[in-house]
């Protein structure tokens, strides 16, 4: 693992990042920092971000990674006071965030899923983690330290919390 890497067990901090689209308002993102047992330590979420028409035309297919990873993801990482040792996402489109941070980014999916593309994966807890193709060293580094997480850890579950928190935020703040 490069950069911050995974530290000792009691200092392990996991980041769980999700984005979602808000009708007519753009995208929002949330980042939850937990300890190695999933207990929440910090949460940040953005206000909705909507690209203008020029950006939509000129970014083309790169609009989504730019918006979600570079804009929203990087902003969230900048804002959290507790920096995670590993960022876990569920949307492969966010893997591009790895190009803008030194922190490893992994896309979690259920351990039962069959993977067909040419990528390296690591099984941690109940999940399978995929990494950015250009940062395969992340997988190798993480594999050596995966014992720091409890076997029963469900790395997909905190992402559900983030989604619920984003929904609550939209309902409470932005729907006014």
């Amino acid at each position: 693992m490069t950069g911050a890497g995974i530290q000792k067990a009691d200092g392990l901090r996991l980041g769980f990042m999700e984005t979602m689209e808000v009708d007519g308002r753009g995208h929002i993102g949330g980042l939850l920092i937990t300890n190695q047992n999933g207990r929440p330590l910090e949460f940040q979420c953005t206000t909705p971000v909507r690209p203008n028409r020029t950006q939509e035309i000129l970014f083309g297919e790169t609009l989504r990674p730019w918006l979600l990873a570079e804009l929203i993801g990087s902003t969230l990482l900048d804002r959290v006071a507790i920096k995670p040792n590993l960022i876990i996402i569920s949307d492969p489109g966010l893997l591009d965030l790895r190009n803008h941070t030194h922190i490893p980014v992994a896309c979690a999916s259920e351990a039962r899923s069959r993977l067909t593309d040419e990528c390296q994966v690591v099984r941690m807890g109940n999940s399978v983690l995929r990494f950015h193709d250009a940062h395969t060293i992340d997988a190798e580094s993480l594999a050596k330290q995966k014992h720091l997480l409890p076997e029963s850890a469900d790395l997909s579950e905190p992402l559900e919390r983030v989604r619920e928190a984003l929904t609550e935020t939209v309902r409470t703040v932005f729907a006014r």
Partner: protein
Amino acid sequence: MNELRSLITLPKEEHSSTELPTIGDSLPTPPEVCERITSPPSIRIDMAQTGFNPALARRPQIDTHSIHLETPLDFVPSWTPRRIPIKCIGLTLPEGMEFLPPKKDPASSPKRVACETADTVSSETELLPKTQPPRKVTRIRPPADALSLQDRLFYLLQPPLESWLAGQELIMPFEPFAYQYEGIAWLFASHSALLADEMGLGKTMQTITAIRLLLRSGQARRIVLICPKPLIPNWQREFKTWAEELPVVTVEGNGARRRMLWTMPGIPVLLANYELMARDIAEIPDEEQPKFDLLVLDEAQRIKNRDSRTAEVARSIRRRRSWALTGTPIENRPEELGALFEFIEVIPKNASPDLRQLSKLAKKYILRRTKDLVMKDMPPRIDRDAELEMTDAQESAYRTAEKEGVIQLNELGDSITVQHVFELVLRLKQITNFDPLTGESAKLERLMADMEEIAASGGKAILFSQWTKTIDWLAPHLKDFNPLIYHGGVPSKQREPILARFKQDPDAHILLMSYGTGAVGLNLQFAGYVFLYDRWWNPAIEDQAINRAHRIGVKNPVIVTRFISKNTIEERIDRVLREKRELFQAVLGEGDNENVTLSLNASEIFGLFDLKARHKDGARSIGPNPHFSQRNQTGPPELS
């Protein structure tokens, strides 16, 4: 471009050497002209014989002009990517308290994942489904009264209880039931809560675990739990079982020490009994009054009289959260709920909510589950009434006492009070237990017969009576079964060893208990038999007693035997209580039979002897008012 120009411009040499024809010149024949001008500019002109040939034969004038296509554009739009400003909403969650982990048996230490030899697996590898089947997940929901986004997010971001308690940070000795997870989540998110689960469903464990989570998540740092004095050892034991890492301090000792304990910061959990709370808190000056993050009242029906000193002191304690625990939120009247709601601070002081309001508050602030609803797999409780003919000596003594008693009551005329009738009832009930003159007892005979069978099969039984005198009288008669006595006359320090011996000694087959001391808070689920030697005034208390044995962990059916002497006051009381049990279901919802538990009121006590209820001093109704009964036609109106 130049090529295009050459197409429509005549060659220079040809243009200079050939003069254009003028009018009057002899024109070349048309085919010649056509030939000349179509090559190299290939323009075809058809000549029609229309009479205008001279005009048509005139050579067309062709000119060109050039276009400068390489001229730069006047406007070039430019665009530079610009970062969209993004605002963030942040929430930092409290750190929470860390406790020293309890010493673990290496064999039972929580499992950690072992490194696998093939840490990294390549693609095209089907990952074996090592995961366990998905379990039910209990999420903590924000309470309805949490309005700020930060408060709501705090609860939403907490992990599901199952994973929180799955041996990662909080070790649980046993896997809680699903309804217990729900209760823990509900308590954790409640500032005002009345946990009213039926006895035996684990209110203690749910409360301790919720306390543990509050401390761990930094939501509370100082908690006080008040319970009846006999239950202090029980709570100490349960804390040891369910939250071994929590430092629990019991308020005891002399006045100075107790005051120090009440006011000393840094004690996460303080345990005290009602009597000490009422005495000590009142003596602490205002400026030194302790402040707690959570105040829990166990057996909270103790404050059902809101004017009592205990209730007033409990309400005066400064706290941020208030939880009340009771298996019988209503013992006598729905209005008793008002006192509990006032304690948990959901109604103003001295407010008297009507039935509709009580019902609405109950839905919001009371969590009540019954065994029928949540423990469908629990072995059943088998109730059987043993209607016994008294012995001759008992019969004679009873009839004489009743006859003389009724005569005396009638002689009192208008000066009769409920107390007079009550005394007669007690005297008669004692005779149904045993004849004080001869010591004969039909109930004892039946009990001996049953106990021989129970002891032969290695079983254990609990017997309840309302009189310690009866218990002391029974003990020598039951010596073959090694009876143990547990009532208010037994010093507190001796009680735990008695319960421990009853559990561990295979020869101790029967535990004799009084309703007052043994009915609440004890876990005796290893006893398969319960005898109610005499009847209490209130079925709720009887149920509490029975549920010492019929509770979580019970492996076999519990057989409950109620002794009722035929043609006596016991039979009449039993009939009235049965009718009253069906009277109210309104406040706590349908299907809840445990709270339809109303004591006899004055009119009913007079009715036991066909005496007319007086409406003077002493005849004050202690039951529900007639107005309430008529609005809830689920049973007969007030008996008189």
